[in-house]
């Protein structure tokens, strides 16, 4: 069960603004999902190693070689605001 308070907390962490109606809706939807997944608890997983990945691939690397970076023009192309070849962001306010 994911109650409305938890939905608001999660939304807050994700910087999402939800209407009262959305909070109700997500509470129900998320609860349904969690309930569904909880079915897995019925299985005996005592001797099973927790799985972080579903594909049997490991140790994929690159060599430590420098290749070209993007041109500054392209880097800053999507910047809503720029100044002195840097991204300009609004004042950083700590949220209370």
């Amino acid at each position, binding site marked *: 069960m994911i109650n409305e308070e938890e939905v608001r907390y999660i939304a807050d962490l994700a910087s999402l603004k939800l209407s009262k109606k959305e909070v109700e809706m997500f509470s129900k939807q998320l609860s349904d999902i969690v309930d569904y997944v909880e079915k897995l608890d019925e299985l005996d997983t005592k001797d099973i190693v927790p799985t972080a990945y579903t594909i049997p691939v490991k140790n994929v690397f690159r060599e430590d*070689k420098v290749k070209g970076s993007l041109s500054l023009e392209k880097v800053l192309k999507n910047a809503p605001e720029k100044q002195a070849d*840097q*991204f300009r*962001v609004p004042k950083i306010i*700590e949220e209370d």
Partner: protein
Amino acid sequence: MDDKYETIIGLEVHAQLDTESKIFCSCSTEFGSEPNTNTCPVCLGLPGTLPVLNKKAVDYLIITGLALNCEIASYSKFDRKNYFYPDLPKAYQISQFDLPLAKNGYIKVETEEGIHRIGITRIHLEEDAGKLIHEGSIDQSSGSLVDYNRTGVPLAEIVSEPDIRTPEQAREYLNYLKKTLEYLKVSDCNMEEGSLRCDANISLRLHGNKKFGTKVELKNMNSFKAIEKALAYEQKRQRKMLENDKKIVQETRTWDESKSKTISMRGKEEANDYRYFPEPDLVPLEIDERWKKDIEDRLPELPAVKRKRFIDEYNLPEYDADVITDSRDLADFFEDSVSEYKDAKVVSNWIMGEFLRLINEEKMAIEDTKITGQLLAKMLKMIDQDVISSKIAKTVFEEIFYTGKDPEEIVKEKGLKQISDQDELESLVEKIIDENPSVIEDIKNGKDKAVGYLVGQVMKETKGKANPQMVNKMFKEKIK
């Protein structure tokens, strides 16, 4: 410092790993480049891009773990740490949560109170964030500029156990870490450039208490000295609060160097919730015995072991051994010299004297100097064979230091060869005797020390090239 309370300190060190390219893309890690010129779609976090792990960053982390007596994980993975901040373009940092590459290590540090063991909880690999430049101070600025060059530089986060009891131990722990990382050549540990950063947790409890007191996190300390001072300040502040029955607030405090005090930044945002989950864009790591062994074989002799060996093998005084093993390059230079010139103490004197003097004057890195152990050894032999005087040797040494030229060549080129020719010296000695009748009178009246003045005159006359022992002997024979 106090019998009633025990201080508990834990340190979190971030060390930039000295790879050429970033951890998940091929951008350069070079410090000091023009803003945002070392960035690409991967480190800018553009949609649709995928990270690919730099093998060297993993190797560097494993060797660090081994040097700090850690267990190396046979299975490890990356996780996403989610939070919003403008220096983090993806809004998550790729880090390691429950399966770090290394854990359960320890080091031993020595302070005046003796040897103290400090546990290392874990060492994990993660990516660095970008750099924010605030317009004005952080609370008054109207906006900030972001440079993403640092985003994606590999970091080793080294977390200690809360085993540190004094600010001095904290300093020694950091010194040990720094020296070790430098010996391993995995990080340049330059605090000014931010390649080594440290946060501290500190709390006090009554002696004998099992439970920890409320801890305070200290940030923004830019040198080991500042860390030691901030911890000492905080230790005092917290004790005073406890003695006055005041409650310590769990918070983050920043060290203000100009005021020499810690200042509250803000209450800790009600327990950070980073919602870690496995990074689906990277596959897990499996480190088998062969890989581990391969890296183990590359472990260099570590500072403490080298220091002890220098004392035992070369009979160096402890002080000399401390200075010379302070850096691996210096220790290597010493050993290269000693392999060809057996008097280790003479070599050590030259290194601690002339060599370090020039290094400090020029603010040079040892590896950038032109001198080699072979060249120093050759020069020292020339002193022993009376080819050059030890005074002239200083000039020769400087020349080798800057140019890397063979000392024989320098002596030949500059005509610095010591004058040991009996006749030539004798005529000089006689000349000086003639010119200084009153000094001769003094010596005859028992003022033996004045001979030194006369020798000095000959040295001056020959621009330091005369063999001082021979000249000294001649004066003594002639004035009798």
